[in-house]
């Protein structure tokens, strides 16, 4: 069992990429943490700020990340200033 402890606030969602080697953790601090997962110790690859909102752990809103099937990136619900959700699609991450 591995513990991912780079988050200082509770995690809300976890999402695997199609290859099963990368885990995206959506945290209540509004940051998406990208981890490389293998039989070795998990490695934090990247922190992505500004993609999802900060929210409480029991918020009904979703900060879940959905991976593209070809592994090139993922989409996340992002609230724009006008209140309409939009989807950001960052390029290949690792």
């Amino acid at each position, binding site marked *: *069992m591995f513990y991912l402890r780079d988050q200082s606030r*509770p*995690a*809300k*969602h*976890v*999402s*695997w990429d*199609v*290859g*099963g080697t990368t*885990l995206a*953790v*959506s945290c209540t601090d509004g940051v998406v943490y990208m981890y490389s*997962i293998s039989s070795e110790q998990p490695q934090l690859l990247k922190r992505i700020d500004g993609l999802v909102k900060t929210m409480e*752990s*029991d918020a009904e809103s979703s900060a*879940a990340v959905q991976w593209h099937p070809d592994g090139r990136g993922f989409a996340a619900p992002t609230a724009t200033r006008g209140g309409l959700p939009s989807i950001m699609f960052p390029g290949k991450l690792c």
Partner: protein
Amino acid sequence: MTTENHFAVAAGNDFCLIGAEDGSVTKYSLVTRELEEILLRCSMPVRDVALSPDGLWAAVASE
């Protein structure tokens, strides 16, 4: 099944994992529909559970 609030579910081919408010992650057989084992007990509610595509890993988000 338990009477706890269930916040997360992830399904494999013949089993599913359920994350509950009491912090437990429990494996249930979809064949026998019985509890197989309690995989993990966190001290805080489990908010999300996800199985890796190869079925070897389960990721758990808990407070």
